[in-house]
Every structure is written in C-alpha cells, then in structure tokens.
C-alpha cells in the first residue's frame, strides 16, 4: 500500500479529479503555474482533467492551444525558461511524436547545454496505455522513448492519491518532468477483466485523496503488496493487473509500483529481488527495447547472485495496438500470472 500523506481532510476523487485538484492547488499557490493544451482550456480537456481551471483562473492561466504538439512543448520550453511553470497537456501520448524533438533536443538538454544558465522546469502530462478501445493511436505507452533521454524525469502514477502528490511534486521540480497518466485508471482501478463493470475509485482506499497541498517525492517506488516468493516490477495499470494475477495464482508476490521510472528507485527494487530471488517485469508497451529491458538489465547486474530463475518480461507484443484484438494484445492477469508461474517453476 502506498503511504497516505496526511493533510487533514480528504475527498473521494477519481484520478481525473485528483489531477485537476493538483493543478488547482498549484495554480492557486503559485501565479507562475499555467495549464494549456488541445481542448484543455474552455472545455477542460477530452478527459476533463483541466475542467473548471479556465473559469477559476482565467484564460491567461488555462487556455486552448492550436493542434500542434510541437508548438505546445516548444512554447512551454520558452515559458519555462522565462520563469513560468507551464503544465502542458498532450491529448494522447500517441500524439507526442510531433513534439518529441522539443522534448528530447530542447527541454531535456537546455540546462546542461547552458551549464545551468537556462532551465526548463515544465511538466508534460499525457494519457497513456490502452484498454479503452482506442486502437493504435489512443493506446500507446511510449515511456521507454522518454527514459532513454538524459535530462528528463518520467513519472507514472497508478491511483488518485499518488497522481495528485506526484503531479504537485512534478510541478515544483526544477527539471522537465513527463507525467504519464494511465487512462484506463482514470475512473477506477482495473483488474484486467474488461467484461466486469468498472470499479469506481470511490470504493478504493487510494481514491480518498487528501485535500490541499501535499507531495509524493519523485524517485520513490511503492511496495503495493509485500510478498516473499517473487518480485513483480510494474507501473500504471499493470500494478492492478499484477494484483489480479496474485489473486489468480496464489503466488505470494511482492508487487512494486515504480511510480517514477527515471530516476529509478533502484534500492527498493534490489532489496526486494535479493529477498525473493525471482523477478517478473510487466508493462503494456511493446517488448523490444521497452522499459522492461532496462529493468531486467539492472536487476541482473545488481542481483546476479540472488537470482534463482531468469527474469521474465510480460509485455505488449511487438505490434501496433489493435482495436479489434485489444484484449489479446493487453497483458492481462492470465499472461502476468503465467509469467509468475514460469518464474516460480524454474
């Protein structure tokens, strides 16, 4: 279980509401915080994460942008260097590519190439992952394309409490932070069984979100389920899939929700794998050169003598994300469970 920050009162919130609350809290605290993106102003975003901000803070603090991801990120770089704290929304992570040059060549390197003379303290929010019948252009998980880039931090929360605390920490962070929002979790946790009705966050402990200001530090993983038999490294939606796989297999897995992919909480990972001796890595992104490869490499480098079985990767396949075969593609509890069994059987 994620530690619960204490701020006094709390409110039941979906992940969408938690994100909006984080933005509202920060916009109220700090005039420099501005929010913008495609349909993110007047309308409040296609997922409603910025709803009401324009009404509350005015169109100069929360506004619509042209459909230009490069323009969105590029303008954010300029604003951040000027001294603002821009929080830009990319409508779907699948659409980050036109803005990728601005992320990789500009935001990520501005501080180092100017030896600290200029900086780009910005946040880029983008919904990631599938499971919403979105097909290949509304389902991607491009985290590995971001973790390879020196100068970026990459964050991915799995629940409302973390989403709010991590987003506030990201806004306050002096470096560019990519904030990935697993869209399948926006309205409730997801156990990988698409035929079941959505469980709302209001039924879940992590949907009870502290009011006001609090942060969850970047770079710290969370052990969502302690266990002895093996370690599952997951993040975003796959955290819940791993829990479902534990239920299905009965294996006493320690499930780690990484929360921040870069910088990575190596200590928590290493301590767990040294304890359990087995490791399964689960993500929704395509396998080859996915972030699972980095995790596998690091675990192998740091826990070689402790490993009793090969590290297993359970991932999306190396194909585009199909709309018609969505649940074949998605690494659900069955496939994660199979990976766990394989690790145990070795």
């Amino acid at each position, binding site marked *: 279980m994620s530690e619960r920050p204490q701020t006094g009162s709390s409110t039941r919130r979906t992940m969408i509401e938690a994100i909006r609350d984080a933005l509202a809290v920060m916009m109220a605290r700090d005039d420099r915080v501005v929010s913008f993106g495609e349909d993110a*102003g007047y309308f409040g975003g296609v997922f409603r994460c910025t709803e009401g901000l324009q009404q509350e803070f005015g169109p100069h603090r929360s506004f619509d942008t042209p*459909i230009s991801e490069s323009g969105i990120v590029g303008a954010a770089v300029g604003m951040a260097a000027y001294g603002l704290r821009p929080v830009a929304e990319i409508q779907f992570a699948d659409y980050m590519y036109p803005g990728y040059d601005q992320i990789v060549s500009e935001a990520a390197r501005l501080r180092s190439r100017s030896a600290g003379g200029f900086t780009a303290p910005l946040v880029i929010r983008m919904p990631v992952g599938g499971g919403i019948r979105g097909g290949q252009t509304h389902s991607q998980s491009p985290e590995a394309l971001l973790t390879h880039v020196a100068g970026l931090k990459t964050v991915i929360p799995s629940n409302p409490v973390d989403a709010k605390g991590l987003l506030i920490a990201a806004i306050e962070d002096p470096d560019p932070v990519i904030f990935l929002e697993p869209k399948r979790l926006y309205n409730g946790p997801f156990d990988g069984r698409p035929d079941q009705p959505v469980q709302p966050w209001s039924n879940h402990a992590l949907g009870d979100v502290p009011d006001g200001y609090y942060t969850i530090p970047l770079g710290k993983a969370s052990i969502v389920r302690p266990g002895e038999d093996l370690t599952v490294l997951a993040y975003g939606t796959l955290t819940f899939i791993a829990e479902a796989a534990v239920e299905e297999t009965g294996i006493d897995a320690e499930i780690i929700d990484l929360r921040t992919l870069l910088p990575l909480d190596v200590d928590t990972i290493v301590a767990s794998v040294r304890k359990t001796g087995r490791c399964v890595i689960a993500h929704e992104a395509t396998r080859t050169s996915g972030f699972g490869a980095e995790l596998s490499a690091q675990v192998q480098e740091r826990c070689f003598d402790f490993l009793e079985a090969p590290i297993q990767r359970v991932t999306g396949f190396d194909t585009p994300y199909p709309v018609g075969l969505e649940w074949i593609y998605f690494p659900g509890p069955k496939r994660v469970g199979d990976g766990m069994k394989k690790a145990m059987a070795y």
Partner: protein
Amino acid sequence: MAERHVQLHVPEPSARPGEIPDFSHLVVPPVHDARRPPVEAEAHSTYDLATTLIRVLDDDGRAGGEWDPGLDAATLKTALRHMIITRLLEEQFMLLQRQGKAAFAIRSLGEEAVSVSSAMAVGATSPGYGPGLDMHFPTYRQAGLLVSNGHSLFEMTCQVLSNSGDRLDGAQLPGLHSVPECGFFSISGNLGTQIIQAVGWAMAGAIENKRIVALAWTGEGATAENDFHSGLVFASVYQPPVILNVVNNQWAISSFQGIAGGGDTSFAQRGIGYSLPTLRVDGNDLLAGYAATTWATERARSGHGPTLIEWVTYRAASHSSSDDPTKYRPADAAAAWPLGDPVKRLSQHLIVTGSATETTLAELHEACRSEVMDVIDQAENLGTINSGPKASPVEMFRHVYAEMPPHLIEQRQELGY
C-alpha cells in the same frame, strides 16, 4: 503610438452555449462574383480567390457564374444519392456505436458535398486509383469519397463493426478505412501527417512524368500541425500534381477556427506565402466544389502543379461518438450556418431546374434508406466488436512486416498460435 495593455490574446468564438449563434464574421460575397482564371494562370494571379468564396448555387438553388461546371441532371442525381447515402450510413454507424456494437463513430453530417464533389471531379478524368495512379489521403471525415468511388457499403460497415468482414482485421478504429482500389489511402489517425505524404505521392508521379493527381485532406484545426507546413513547402518547391484540401468546418473538437490561427485571414490564404495558387470555395455547394476541384485537377494533370483549396463548411454533428458539442457551442448553431445544408441545396437546385420533384426526391431518400438498412443488417449478421467471429490473433502479428521475423513468430507462439 497607441499603448495597449500587453496581454495574451486568447481568441473566443462568437457564441458559447446559451448564446445566440453569430456568424456575422463570415463574409459571404455575392454569388457568381468570383472569376475563373485559366488553369495555367500564374499562382500569384489567383490570390484574390483566397479571400472570396467561390459559389455556383444561389439561395434559391439556381446555378450560374463562371464556375458553373454545367453538369447534367443524371450526374447531379448521382451526387445527391452519394451525399444521402453517406449521411444515412454514418447515422447508422453512430447508432451502432451507441448500442455498443462499434468501438467508435464519426460523421461528416453537413459536409457531405465536400468529399462527394471532390471524388466526382477527380474521378471524371482519373486514369484509375492505386499505386502509380490517383490517390486521396483523407481524414476520418471524408467517407463520401468511398461512397462516391464505389466502395462496398457492406465492407465499410464491417470495418466499423470490427467484425470478421473487416479487411483491416481489426487493426484500426472504425472509420479509419484503407481502400487502395477506391483511391482511399490508409488513414493514420495522427493529424497532419498525411499532407506531406500526398505531396510525396505526387512527387513520385512527377518523377515518373505521369498525369496523376494526389489529394491531401486536412481539417482546419489540423493545419496547425507542423506537417501542414512541410506539405506546403515541398509542394511549393517541387510543384508536383497535388491538391491540398483544407476543410474548414469551423470546429476542431471543442476549439473554434480562431484557435487554429484563422485570425482575420482565410485558411486558403496560408497558401499565398508559399506561392501556391489558392481557391476558397463554398463547401456546401456541390457544384462549386466540383468546379474548384476540376480546375485544380486539370491544372495538376497538365503539368502546372499544386493548388490549395479551402472548403468553407460547418460540422453540424458532434466531433465523434466521444464528444458532446453542447458543452462548447450553442445547441442550434448548425441551423444558423449561413451556407445552409448541402443535401437541401442540391435538392433545391434539382427542383428549380425541373430535374426532380419533391416526390422523386422523397423516393430517392427512401431507396437510399432501405439500401443502407439492408447493408447494416447484413454486416451485423457477420458480427460486431462484441459478438461473432473475429480476426484471428495471428492477424495481429501478420502485417507488421512483409515476412514475419523470428521475434514475432516467437511472440505469436507464446500466445499459443
């Protein structure tokens, strides 16, 4: 010097929900006023056509002016039929989505004249469609191209239902068709990217000295995407036979055209800075659209290079099945649109020219409706996204490469296939 407050200018549409629709900013010049230059005219001599509005049909449905393409009644009735079929079909697709039988739906309601007139004009001189020939690079709002170019309505519906009749094996969202033989390029889903691809296709035709034409399609919102620029730059430099179509339906999901940078210019005008000939056309006037496309097609095929066309129209429906337009614009905005409805306007024209009566038009509607309903029934019988046989999981691995590489064979086997 007049000092103004320095502030961020955030454009706002003329009316929001609860307010009265206001289209007074749309200057509608007198019908028939626009001149029709010869197709070999120098680009810069066409710039006046970027700010006017080419119109053939007046408010009473009478045709006239230099741009009147003089189409015969049979052709016009076919056009009307294609518009009606497109409209009814997409209405059904939306219904299927509401019933959970399709993952997604999107319509071109109110804009049907755009794709139908373009397809017909290009088709009139087309050497054929497919690699080495003519090709449209559409967005999701040009289903009329498929209807006009004779694609099977049944197949179209199967794609929307992601059932076993979907030739794309469930790879793509409903509406993101790919039909080479009907001159319909695979729609990406990523906005803006395919403008430069159309230019590349036209460059290939020029390299081979072929009298082909490629047609790029974009919404006005997506002109803000960077690849709109690369498309215009390459078109300007290499002068290939390409038609760059900007469909200005006033909205891009919840943002009005001012957020795309329309300002006090037209989107057609964007072409001027790139030395491209530009036409701005009444998009709800099938005859005007046909005429403009014919001009640009002739120009392209006769070696005079690219044309940019802005189609001024209105997105009467929601953006897609995921959208509720009453959240950001007056509910009755479409009805107030000054350029009317394309189906009504062409119908009216057929009536005033004596080519149709209220009765024959009602019959036409009825015939279209029953054709569409039959197609929907048949396709549903084959299955929907939630029921019936699906593409085999093997399909997911099949077309990633021409030949399945070892790692995909391994992953397919992992899955048990």
